[in-house]
């Protein structure tokens, strides 16, 4: 039906993982995409170098929200530095229009189509860039 808004992406949009800022956290950061007007807040809790909880909230488009949902789903219980490297790869992959499921695994497939819409790639990057800010704050 829609090249960009496929079922898998819409599922994340409609039932986002981690859409709940009411968690205990060690770092909270906000991000803003001026082109789109998207605003997001990401919170992360880290214990012994592992992400124990991660959540987001904000007024954002479906792509940003789905991407944030995938992020929360994928990064929970992940070593913090490994999470950072996933974020780096995803952001760069969207920039260079790579196939994200080949790059990072099937869970990222909902975002595959985004790479073909450069103007929207920023929306998918925003949650991850905001997560990077948290990493900068907490990094060892």
């Amino acid at each position, binding site marked *: 039906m*829609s090249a960009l808004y496929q079922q898998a992406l819409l599922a994340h949009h409609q039932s986002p993982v981690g859409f709940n800022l009411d968690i205990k956290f060690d770092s909270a950061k906000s991000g803003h995409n001026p082109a789109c007007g998207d605003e997001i807040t990401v919170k992360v809790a880290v214990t012994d170098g592992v992400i124990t909880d991660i959540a987001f909230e904000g007024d954002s488009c479906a792509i940003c929200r789905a991407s944030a949902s995938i992020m929360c789903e994928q990064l929970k219980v992940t070593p913090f530095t490994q999470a950072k490297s996933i974020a780096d790869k995803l952001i760069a992959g969207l920039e260079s229009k790579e196939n994200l499921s080949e790059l990072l695994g099937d869970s990222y497939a909902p975002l595959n189509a985004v790479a073909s819409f450069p103007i929207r790639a920023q929306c998918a990057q925003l949650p991850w860039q905001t997560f990077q800010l948290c990493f900068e704050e907490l990094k060892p």
Partner: protein
Amino acid sequence: MALISRWKADFPVFTQSDQPLYYLDSAASSLVPKVVADASYQYLLNEHANSHRGFYPLSAQLTQRIEDIRAQVANFINAPSADNIIFNSGTTAGIHLVANGLNRLKSGSGNIVISAAEHHANLLPWQQIAENSDIELRVVPLAASGQVDMPMLERLIDDNTLIVAVTHLSNVLGVENPIASIGKLTRQHGAFLLVDGAQFAAHGKVNVQALGCDFYVFSGHKLYSGHGSGVLFASDVAIAELAPVVLGGGMVNSVSVSDSAWATGVRKFEAGTLNAQAIIALSAGLSYLKQAEAEGAHTYLAELTQFTLDKLSAFGGINIYSVQQSKPQSIISFNLERVHSHDVAMVLAEHHIAVRAGHHCAQPLHHCLGVGSTVRISLGLYNQAEDIEQLLVGLETCRQLFIAR
């Protein structure tokens, strides 16, 4: 009421491919009719030269033609004379010339009054002046009608007001401001009035003398003329106080390494090579528009706007930010509840519908509306009921994709 456009066939883009095009973004830039493209093409092929420079016919005839078009433009907005018409590259460039060229703004004190509905082109230059001097920027809020709040304006203008800069027609709300009343108030306080006509010029008869404005600015590309032309009307009093901002060839009488004297008249505001192609296209575009107006364009577009408003209201779940007016003005901004404007625009694009989503270079206005962004549809001569019906199909898809389950 058959809302079928009699002008659509004049625009080749609609038949160039087997993909349909439902273009609802004329406020960003209107499409170009064949007659305008032909005038440009003819110019490029056979008439191109540097005007105002050469003695040979190719250049001298072009100079004459541009000066004739200056008179045509003066006539289009009922300016007293062609000597009040300055050509440049667009509304943004025109406001730049005023904000940086007006002597009184260099005094460093006083205040500038704008409205909360201004496009960034009519906000940022004033904001910068306020940041770099003791001049205060005063922003008049909007009334419930979407117009400038007149009682508030009366309170904010005073004898220290240097200039009032307001839009004639909001590029987000499609609401027309009561410029003539604003002009009266402005004159009482000895302030200048600049009117941003970028949106209005395509939708109504402009009469700068009746409006009582000192500056009126607009862009050719929103008037079916393609890119590259802009017009700055300046009254005689305004010209007398305006210094050239962009400096270069064709604007000086005499130049030595230590000193220079400006040319007299409007040419001193047109440094560098004039874009003759864009000016010729503007001429063709204005003629085309005038003809369409004679054929009832304004009424047609008002009806089509009303039709659109009715359909959108009936659709449900839509917040319309454009206020109902006696004469609806071809621009409507809205949001589909719980769906981001960019997602709406993307899905509509997949339905071959061109709309704009975002803040439309009017972030402060969106702040007032309490939303980060909106979907804007804006109508041109080629639009008809069919475009709106397709829009509703697209919106229905949005609803199904993003909401309904």
